[in-house]
């Protein structure tokens, strides 16, 4: 987009319009996104939303983005996405339709944007009319002394859907932190390792690498290998403490070796 053309456009705007456009930029945090901003701009055209000029609107919006760039105001990504789309729409509206082109026509896209703006405005109006209605607890009121008089007592347990969902959410989040169901088959307890080692060390008279005591298959999966190694190591410490086993390690990080202690 040529800078010069942009300047020219800015000049073409009246002073008040320019002030309004600048106010829009400074106030951009006050808008709920590009559609909201476009709706505000469309209203400055001071016509029925049905008759809004989408081309004019696209130009106004692109001018706005350009001006924000000049003022070094960072616009959120969705404003820039909308700008890109409007630039595309503008070219579609200005260029003669290419018969080879398959996509929707510029008119269709413009009509949909106009529809979106009109619909958003309609929902805002509807929301305003809804909130302007007489409201319970403000304009009209329920019975102040509901008579729950009778004495036949029956206990009924209540729970709301929120309670139910929150309970489930609580359980599921806890699951994420402690997935015990799935973990179980990747975990070897010290007791299990102790039982296994007690049976195995009798057969090995000589120094043997601790790693070779891992159960078959457990050395492949990292989670299982980690768990089994830790359990086996703890078990060897226990057996050494009981006096059934000797442990040695040649150097830092060297393999840990164990052998059955010869009694007597």
């Amino acid at each position, binding site marked *: 987009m040529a800078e010069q053309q942009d300047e020219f456009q800015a000049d073409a705007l009246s002073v008040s319009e320019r002030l309004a456009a600048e106010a829009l930029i400074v106030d951009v945090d006050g808008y709920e996104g590009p*559609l909201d901003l476009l709706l505000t701009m469309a209203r400055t055209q001071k016509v029925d939303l049905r008759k809004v000029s989408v081309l004019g609107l696209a130009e106004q919006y692109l001018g706005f983005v350009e001006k924000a760039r000049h003022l070094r105001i960072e616009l959120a990504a969705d404003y820039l996405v909308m700008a890109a789309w409007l630039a595309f729409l503008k070219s579609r509206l200005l260029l003669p339709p290419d018969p080879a082109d398959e996509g929707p026509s510029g008119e269709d896209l413009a009509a949909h944007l106009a529809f979106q703006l009109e619909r*958003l405005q309609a929902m805002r109006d*509807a*929301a305003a009319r809804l909130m302007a209605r007489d409201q319970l607890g403000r304009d*009209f009121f329920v019975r102040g002394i509901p008579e729950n008089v009778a004495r036949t007592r029956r206990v009924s347990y209540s729970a709301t859907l929120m309670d139910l969902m929150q309970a489930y959410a609580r359980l599921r989040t806890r699951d994420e932190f402690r997935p015990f169901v799935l973990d179980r088959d990747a975990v070897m307890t010290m007791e299990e390792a102790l039982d296994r080692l007690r049976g195995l060390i009798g057969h090995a008279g000589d120094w043997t690498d601790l790693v070779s005591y891992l159960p078959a298959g457990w050395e492949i999966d990292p989670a299982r290998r980690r768990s089994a190694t830790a359990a086996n190591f703890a078990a060897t410490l226990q057996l050494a403490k009981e006096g059934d086993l000797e442990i040695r390690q040649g150097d830092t990080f060297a393999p840990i070796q164990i052998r059955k202690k010869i009694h007597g």
Partner: protein
Amino acid sequence: MADEEQTPAQEDSLFEAPPMGEQERMVEAILFASAEPVSVAELAARMPHGSDPAEALVHLRKRYEGRGVRVMKVGDAWAIRTAPDLGFLMHKETVETRKLSRAAIETLAIIAYHQPATRAEIEDIRGVSVSRGTIDQLLELEWIRFGRRRMTPGRPVTFVVTQAFLDHFGLESARDLPGLKELRAAGLLDNRPPPGAGLAGAEDEDEDLDEADGQPELFEE
């Protein structure tokens, strides 16, 4: 009470239903005693066998026209509420309600007018994502609840408004939402897919039709 002869026929009761004047008194007493709207079915369950609470309600409603309290229809239930023009007398009773954000109010309106509405549809109309907590707040107020899942890919949940919503805004049904007819006539409640979205839209609309059927209490003609 000259209604004696109008007493509806009983299929299986040994006893005659009470005269309509008495039934009207009963409905009056039950509605006065309850802060919550009471459904016709519950009225019937509590009144003597063979009673016709629906007819009694017609009489009762007429009786309270122009009075300080009035008989109001809320969905398929009924309640007595003070006349809105007397709200100024009630400052003592006014409960300070949490101020709803503009996002929450618009989301509520979109759900009410488009129901059942998915989160994606709300976001499409507002042009921004629905912030965390907005839906939560409306659920907590019990103004919206989960409706049927939409039979589209992802089977998104939908939201619909509740009886408490109708009660709060003094609406007999969601059909009575202000301006609903005009909005519909103007096509502003159509679920119009953006051009170029392909044929997927056609099937969606069929599903919408089914959904609407599933909620006769809200949008039937």
